């Protein structure tokens, strides 16, 4: 069973958190606000594309808007497989970090 990579996990988690508001800008801003990570454009959009290809995400077209020259906004949503992947990675995470000795710098 293949576990999600770090960035994949972060992105999927963000999408899940943002629910219906999950599109490029929102994802980027959420990650930035929550973690302080300032990722390059490519680091967001390339994984997004890959995740869609892998079937962990699917895209939903929003309403066309004049600001975008009449184009539609693209929203992302988790698929079943995506949800499962998150659950798996969560399991693995808690399992590993269960009996960890303290990580304080001393």
């Amino acid at each position, binding site marked *: 069973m293949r576990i999600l990579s770090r960035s994949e996990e972060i992105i999927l988690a963000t999408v899940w958190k943002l629910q219906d508001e999950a599109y490029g800008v929102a994802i*980027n*801003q959420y990650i930035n606000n929550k973690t302080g990570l300032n990722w*390059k*454009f*490519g680091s967001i959009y390339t994984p997004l*594309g890959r995740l869609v290809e892998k079937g962990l995400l699917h895209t939903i077209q929003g309403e066309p808007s004049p600001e*975008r*020259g009449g184009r539609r906004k*693209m929203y992302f949503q988790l698929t079943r497989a995506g949800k499962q992947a998150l659950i798996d990675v969560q399991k693995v995470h808690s399992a590993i970090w269960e009996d960890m000795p303290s990580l304080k710098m001393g």
Partner: protein
Amino acid sequence: MTQLNRKRKSPPRLAEWIIKRMSWAEDRDDILDNLREEYKTLFIKQGKVFARCWYWGHTLRSSLPFFVSDFKWRFIMLKNYLKIAVRSFKKHKGYSLINIAGLSIGIACSILVMLYVFNEISYDKFHEKANRIYRVAVSADIADMDWRQVYTPAILSPTLVNDFPEVENVTKLYNMRDQLITYKNHTFQDNKTLAAEPSFFDIFTFPMISGDPVTALQSPNSVVITQSIASKYFGLEDPVNKIIQIGENEFKVTGIAKDVTFNSHFDFNFLVALETFEWSKSTRWFNNSFATYIILNEGFDYKKLQEKLPAFVTKHLYDDNEDHNRWEYFLQPLTSIHLNSNLKGEFKANGSAAYVYIFSAIAFFVLIIACINFMNLTTAKSAKRAKEVGLRKVVGSVKSQLVRQFLSESIFLSFAALLFAILLVECFLPYFRNLIGEQLKLNYFENSYVLPGLIGLALLVGIVSGSYPAFYLSSFKPVSVLKGQLQEGMKDSNLRNGLVMFQFMISIILIISTIIVYNQMQYIQNKELGFDKEHVVVIKNTDLLGNNTEAFKEALTSYPAILNVSGSYTLPGRIFNNWGIKPEGLPGTTIDFCVCDENFLNTLKMEMVEGRFFSKDYQTDAQAIILNEETVEQFGWDKPIGKTFEMRRTTLTVIGVIKNFHYKSLHEKVFRMGLLPLRGVQNLSERYISARIRPDNIPSVIDKIKETWVSFSPQIPLDYSFLDDDYDRLYKHEQQVSKITSIFSFLAIFIASLGLFGLASFIAEQRTKEIGIRKVLGASVPGIIQMLSKKFLLLIFLANIIAWPSALFLMTKWLNNFAYKTSIGLSIFLFSGFLALFIAFISVGYQSMKAARANPVDSLRYE
């Protein structure tokens, strides 16, 4: 939101464009939209500068690694292409060498011709103010001819400055031609002496090594010499302030100038002050002896000044409304003189714009032939690369990548050819220099245009020659190619055949031209000139002998090896002065004339038609004149002997008519000419003594002449030449053209046959199986040779058909430059056609024969 507002809130266009080019953003409009949204938010929150920085920052961070890896991969692919190219080269050494050889020769030709062209174009551009300098020249109707000359009067320059405020400065130059220079009892000859004014250094840029350009030519009897003259005749001594004698006057050296570079339309070793000579202050408007140069104010259009000149002429040259023939002054931009001027009285022979075009065209065509070769050979070879192409396509190459691969191959080959070409150029540059007669040097590093130019040339050649094969090769369909099916168009191609025909057509035109030019040269050399120029020694500057000239001539005649001696002011092949005359009963006109002694006729072996030549027996000969046939014909005189006319207010009587002789080059028709005696109406001295000598043991005769000369004039060195050489120099240009066209046509046909050779061998290879089968079925070797060669020979035949009329047209135009020309016979065309056919046959025949004699067993073995 208004349109204006919107615009300002959008991200920098260039950055968006960069992002679009990345693979993750290629078809994702929404990404750009998202980014635009973020940008807008930032713009509002933190201002324009912050937003832009943020956008650019992200663009660069994302794009840089992308592009870097992109280049890295492209570079790796390039290395792969190079490897394949080298392998392909090694595998087909012969054909690759043919390709490179053809391209190298083509590139080398282009380089040499470009050197020549840049040299010609660069004349006179080294002056700082070159684009404001103009020469004032004369165009007039003299005796129904359009007479154009450099010679203008002394008073022209000061008057121009007075009348026209836009004329910033003027200067005039006088050509003193051959002079005898003496320094400290050492006498030598120099033919590059000019007389100039102080404004000379103001207008022209001739840097001085010592001395002050402003004052050097101010006082009379000063002279500026050039560096090489200084070191040659003064050695380590400082020449400044020393006294030297030039001609009859003494001059003090007031400065040393750098040597004049070769690309100047005039040249000097000595520059004497015009102030020295009283005649330079003449105010007569029709004493034309000077070259006048003006410099106009910055930005002034010279054509505007030229429009004012006719009024200027009327004002100064003629009393009001006096009737006169057309006399005009016109302006020549300095930089246009060398290629376009060709007036009477030029300091140095000009170049010719026409020849610049001709040579460029020839080199261009040779290069085209080489490129066509390359195209043909590569596409013909494509059978061998077909499998490679098919495989590459199967593994995922896109057509554009394949095009890139084959293009880079041809570019590599082109650069290899460039290296060879440079080698060739270095080898042959000395010969080329001799041919052109100019100092040409290829400075790879000095001139900032050379290296990029060469690289650009190789690139251009590579792309041009490689484009057709590249597209052709990359269009192969993988399935059919891997199956081993022959692509349609690989065996025989109309385009390819057409290209071969074009190559040979150009070669044939070049061959025909070469033959015709050569014929014309021979014609010129051998034409009956009306005098015999062979074996005549011309001794120059004999006017310096003064009263001893007669004695000198006597002394020379005493030698048996010297058959005849004669003195004259000028000679055929040199300039004949032109003067106005009034024949009896006819309107005033002009004739060319030469002053000579009574031996002139016999020494030059000319013929009289009627009457007698000058003779010492007749005292009245001082007022006699001998006309040539042309003059008498034009005057319509049946009985010319005894007719009179006026020249310089003296009445002259015609005592004889001489047969027309070509005293000018065969470019021009024979003009009205008359011979005048010494000490006659034109009191000119005998500047030249011609001696007809026995053809055997010439060096000893020359020695005897030298001895005699020294005994008469010990201080002055003997200056002599041969009349036939002097006369031939009139055709320097044509001789160059003759040599160059022969060399280029040789090269053209060489390259074309190289191409044909390679092509034929491939076709033969292609058809090995077919030949094997035919042989098995009973075809004979000659039959097969015929079959293989038929197509090519037909092409050559067709090439002839197009070439002949084109060559005829071109050559007729060129021959019209001559008043006397050779005829263009059918035999020339037939000869060229057969020559081309013969060469083609050898190239094709060898391959055909090899193929025809192959053992069918070998060819059919792997069927």
